[in-house]
């Protein structure tokens, strides 16, 4: 699975470079989480996955290509182009994606609806740390514990950087595990770049409470010049940096 993660990272760099697209940092922080979910035997066919942090679309699209759900060549040619189904934010025009996301704070409520509709399946939703700020987050946290939605699993890609700076300096959400436990959720905290740890957490879910797995990650992980750098939420890769990024990823 480490090999798959490396391949996905390379593909993200190729996509972002070819189409001069942004959000490198947000993609790189959630690769292991996506690989664990899609290649770790966690999700059954009836289970649902929602990508609330829709701006890491290049990462999810690459995963879907690796799964054979979409065609890599089609994605490589048409990603981030006006009129293409591969919009820059996760879009339901792409096979394998049920709901479009991009505006923060939308994924958790939709996941709750899907979890309520059928309590015999699991609903996984991947969110950013910035998404733990809007009102819908706290409304949803209250609702899910009130209705004991034990089939809901919120994964937080906690890369600690939001669009304008360190989350703790903009609007602190920590200690997120302690806070969310107080709302009667089952909370685990893992190294979000350790695929085994993520899988283990997904196999260790509470059967009584809604579940949160806080995945501590590094924004830009694997690309030396982008790690923990806010600006790589926005910048596009030039040829020199693209080559450097690929070399960095090969060394991982």
């Amino acid at each position, binding site marked *: 699975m480490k090999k798959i993660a490396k391949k996905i990272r390379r593909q993200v760099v190729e996509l972002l470079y070819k189409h001069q697209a942004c959000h490198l940092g947000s993609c790189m922080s959630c690769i292991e989480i996506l690989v664990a979910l899609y290649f770790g035997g966690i999700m059954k066919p009836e289970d649902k996955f929602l990508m609330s942090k829709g701006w890491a679309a290049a990462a999810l699209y690459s995963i879907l290509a690796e799964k054979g759900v979409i065609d890599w060549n089609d994605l490589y040619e048409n990603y981030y182009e006006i009129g293409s189904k591969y919009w820059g934010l996760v879009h*339901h025009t792409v096979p394998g994606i*049920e*709901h*479009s996301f991009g505006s923060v704070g939308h994924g958790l*409520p939709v996941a*709750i*609806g899907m979890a309520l509709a059928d309590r015999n399946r699991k609903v996984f939703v991947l969110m950013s740390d910035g998404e733990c700020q809007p009102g819908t987050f706290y*409304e*949803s946290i209250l609702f899910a514990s009130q*209705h004991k939605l034990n089939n809901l699993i919120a994964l937080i890609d906690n890369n600690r950087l939001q669009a304008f700076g360190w989350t703790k300096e903009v609007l602190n959400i920590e200690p997120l595990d302690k806070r969310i436990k107080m709302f009667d959720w089952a909370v685990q905290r893992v190294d979000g770049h350790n695929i085994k740890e993520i899988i283990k957490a997904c196999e260790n879910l509470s059967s009584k409470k809604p579940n949160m797995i806080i995945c501590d990650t590094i924004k830009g992980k694997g690309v030396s010049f982008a790690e923990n750098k806010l600006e790589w939420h926005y910048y596009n890769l030039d040829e020199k940096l693209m080559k450097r990024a690929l070399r960095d990823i090969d060394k991982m």
Partner: protein
Amino acid sequence: MKKLRTIFVEKLIELAEKDKNVWLLNDDTGFNLFEDFEKKFPNQYINCGITEQTIMGIAAGLAQSGKKPYVYGIIPFVIMRCYEQLRDDVCYHNANVKIIAVGGYQYYKFLGFTHNIEKDEDIKVLKHLPNIKIHTPETSKEVEKVIREEYKRKGPAYIRL
């Protein structure tokens, strides 16, 4: 004469008797209105609390899983407080969510600005959203007809009572 909202609930009970996918969600409004529905269909009714933005997302998620959610509330709360969720999660996805909104000039006229709308303010706000059908029935018969027709149609609707 029965209130239009009472007609709505009666019709919804008829639908729910035949179809367990009919769900009713409200935002802690609708005093004395939903007791019969809740008694008959406890698993198809949720008072979601005062969480309108989240309710719209929940309704979209339910609809995308084959449920038929009816969301009840006072006009400014069920379309304005949650406007972006309505736009992105419900209307853009053509989710089969029916919004039942009350207010419409008369019920809350003594309460002032927050609970009331200017004439057709709601329609001006909603008419640019994709896929949504807007209905403003004024008689019992019209309410019955629109509830019946919207039940058969897949897609978002706004029904002002």
